[in-house]
Structures are given as structure tokens and as C-alpha cells.
């Protein structure tokens, strides 16, 4: 290890730098929160339309299935460039942060839609039937009966995806968003040792991800077996194993 490292510590750990890191951390978290938050709402809408029993919506349903399948299969890095250049071509000069948020939203919607659909499927058919016979209508059935039972199946994997997106947004540095990874690169560029620059980066990501993962486990354990399910939860087409 270079001997300069110890000497650098003093220069590196200043108030000003700490504030820079803090801001970068905020941006990283904000991208995941905004993207997954909006994605969660959109995913619920997609599943609602996808499961709506009307012949007229068939084309829309096909589009939704395609959307969900396709956008779970495009790398974040490629997608963020597509969003960037497409919005620019459309004459929308969105800030880079917004571009990143849109990208997270687009993928998160697809991923979470799969989770929500599996949640719907985990609720026994007889619950839908009871509601139908009592004239609940589709929206009320979902709001009063299905979601209150499905959310125990939806929340844990959705939360893991949220944690995954905190890490995934490090790729947003490639279009120039000033988030954690970008901060690491900046310090490396101005001469701070890569061990120090990227090490700090790693430490902060870890400090975000590890406790949140543990929170996720606790949520999962608490929600497990909340309702007796007359049918076992359908396995997800994509099990909620979450990547790097």
C-alpha cells in the first residue's frame, strides 16, 4: 500500500469533504426512493389493468406483459443512456438526476409489477368470488380484500428490490449524476488514493445496504404467516433473488 495513504487522511477528512459525501449519499438514496416509490404506484396500476377481465383491454394487457418482460431484461446502464438520449431528442432537457429517477422508475415498475402480480395470485380464488357475489366490483375487491392479504407477500421482495436499486444507481454516475460513485471518482481524480476514495464509497454503500437488508428480513419474518392462505403462494416467475 502506498505510504502516501496515511498522509492523505488528514487532507481527505475535512468538513467540506464530509458534506460532499453527505450530499452524494442523499442523491443516491433519493434516486432509489423516488424511482421505487413511483414504480410501486405504477406497478399496482399495471397489475390492475393486466388482471381486469374485459375484452376491450386485451391490447393493453399484451402491452403490459411485453413491458414487464422487456424492461426486466435491459441493463440499467443501457437503459439510462436510452432515457437520456430519448428525452434530449424529444427536447426535454431534464436534469441528470431526473433522468436517473425516470430510469429507476421504468425498471422498478417492471420488477415490482411481477411481485404485485404474484401477490394477487397468492390470494385464494374464493376471496375474489365472495367479493364478486356481494357486488364489490373490481376496485373495491382489490382495495378491501386482495391487497390487504397480498401485501405480506408483496412488501418483502419489493423492499429487497429497493435496496438493490440503491446499489444499482451507482451506474447513474456514468451520465454524470453526482451520487456516491461519482463522488468516489471525483476524489480519485483529484489525487486521492483509489483505496481511500472507493473505500469510502464502499463503506457508505455498505452502511446503507446492510442495515436495510436486515430491516427487510425483519419485515419478512414479521409478515410471514400473517394470513392463512388456502392456496400456497404461487412461485414468482422471477424469484426475489436480487443481484449486485
Amino acid at each position: 500500500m502506498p505510504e502516501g495513504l496515511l498522509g492523505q487522511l488528514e487532507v481527505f477528512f475535512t468538513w467540506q469533504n464530509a458534506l460532499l459525501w453527505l450530499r452524494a449519499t442523499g442523491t443516491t438514496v433519493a434516486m432509489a426512493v423516488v424511482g421505487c416509490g413511483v414504480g410501486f404506484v405504477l406497478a399496482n396500476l399495471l397489475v390492475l389493468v393486466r388482471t381486469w377481465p374485459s375484452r376491450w383491454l386485451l391490447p393493453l394487457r399484451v402491452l403490459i406483459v411485453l413491458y414487464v418482460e422487456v424492461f426486466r431484461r435491459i441493463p440499467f446502464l443501457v437503459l439510462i443512456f436510452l432515457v437520456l438520449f430519448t428525452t434530449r431528442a424529444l427536447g426535454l432537457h431534464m436534469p441528470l438526476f431526473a433522468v436517473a429517477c425516470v430510469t429507476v422508475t421504468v425498471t422498478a415498475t417492471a420488477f415490482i409489477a411481477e411481485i404485485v402480480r404474484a401477490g394477487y395470485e397468492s390470494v385464494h380464488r374464493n376471496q375474489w368470488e365472495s367479493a364478486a357475489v356481494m357486488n364489490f366490483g373490481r376496485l373495491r375487491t382489490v382495495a378491501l380484500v386482495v391487497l390487504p392479504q397480498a401485501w405480506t407477500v408483496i412488501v418483502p421482495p419489493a423492499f429487497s428490490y429497493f435496496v438493490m436499486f440503491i446499489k444499482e444507481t451507482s451506474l447513474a454516475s456514468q451520465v454524470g449524476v453526482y451520487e456516491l460513485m461519482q463522488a468516489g471518482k471525483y476524489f480519485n481524480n483529484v489525487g486521492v488514493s483509489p483505496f481511500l476514495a472507493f473505500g469510502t464509497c464502499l463503506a457508505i454503500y455498505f452502511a446503507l445496504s446492510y442495515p436495510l437488508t436486515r430491516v427487510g428480513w425483519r419485515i419478512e419474518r414479521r409478515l410471514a404467516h400473517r394470513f392463512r392462505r388456502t392456496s400456497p403462494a404461487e412461485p414468482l416467475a422471477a424469484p426475489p433473488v436480487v443481484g449486485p
Partner: protein
Amino acid sequence: MDYTFQWGVALRYLPDLLQGAWVTFHLTFIGFWTGLVVAVFLAVGQLYGSVRLRRAISAYVVFFTNTPSLVTAFFIFYGLPEIGILWSPYVCVLVNLVLNAGAFLTDVIRGGVASVRVAEMEAAETLGFSMLQKIRYVIVPHVAKVLYAPISNLYIVFILGSALAAIFGVEELTGTAFNIASETFRTIEIYSLAAAIYVVMTVVASVVLALVGRLAFRVRARVL
């Protein structure tokens, strides 16, 4: 909108993109399956090793599953030369992939082995199975069934994740798209084409994995 699509230009570069897709394929194929071998050893170590070994493996798993692979890649790419190790970008990215895949897969495998029910083990006990027989007839078949879907799924995740190699100048699919886009300025067309190739690649991978699973492990996997 002052952007005019020129799909013709983009399509002319299709062979180059496919060349890149080939690199993506062998990068992830080698990296992921090497990672799986590593993970099998680590999972065994974690289940049957000494306390110290278990702690070390846990630390490795927890570290890599809680940090972005992009940052560990930067760490390797810029850190190693500082201590005198000079690897090509491809090797750096490959090593990073193995390390990450190894960590995620260790976690998945450990969970799967832990799910072999006590009852099944006791049944094997009463039948007088030896340790090797237990592994051969009880643990491996059960674990293969439980793990097949999550491992297949992770493989897809890692194909997509390998796009970060582009940042380090590896000319895989995304890297090739980078280069072509900056030469031709047909950004939207080129990246769309690259995205389409990723979709096709991962669908093919899913289908092949589902078929292999059905034939080799009798796993009924949903293809899509």
C-alpha cells in the same frame, strides 16, 4: 424534435454489436459458472467449517452482497495497479464478476441446503445412510430442485450486470454500443438495438436453462 431516426446506419453495425454480444456471453458464462464452483466450496465451508472459516466466509458474502459491483470493480481496476498488479480490463471485470457471483450464490446455496428438512435427514439416518450417501441421495437432489430457479434467475441478473464492463473499456455488447454511438451519433438506434439484443440473449438463456432444468433436474420452471 430535431432527431431523425436512421435505422439503416444502426443496422449496418449489427455485426459489431453481435460480436460484442459474444464477448458478453463468454464473460458472463465463464464468470458466473466459476462463481458457482467457488460458491459451492464456500457454502460447504460455511456449513461444515470451523468457526473462523465460517466467519471469514460470512464476511465475504455480506461485503459483496451489500456493495455495488461497480464500486468493487473500480476498486479492483484502480486499486490493484497501485500495489503493482496489472491486469487487462477483461480480467479485472471477470474477477469482479466471479467475486460477486460467488457471494450471491453462496447465500443462495446455503439457504437451499438449510431448507433440507430435518425430517428427511432423520429418515436417511434411520435407513442407515452414510454421510456420502446422504449427500448423494438426500441433499443434492433436494438442493438442486430448490436452487435451480434462483440460480437461473441470478444468471440473467449477471448477464445484465456485466454491462458495467463497458465502463472499463471492455468491448462487450454495451462497450461496443458506446463506441459506435460516439462515432455515429445514432445514439437512440444503437442503444435500442443493444437493448433488444440483451432481451433476446436473456430470453434464450431463460429458455435454455428451463429446458436443462426440466431434463436434468426435473424442475418445472416457468420459462418467462
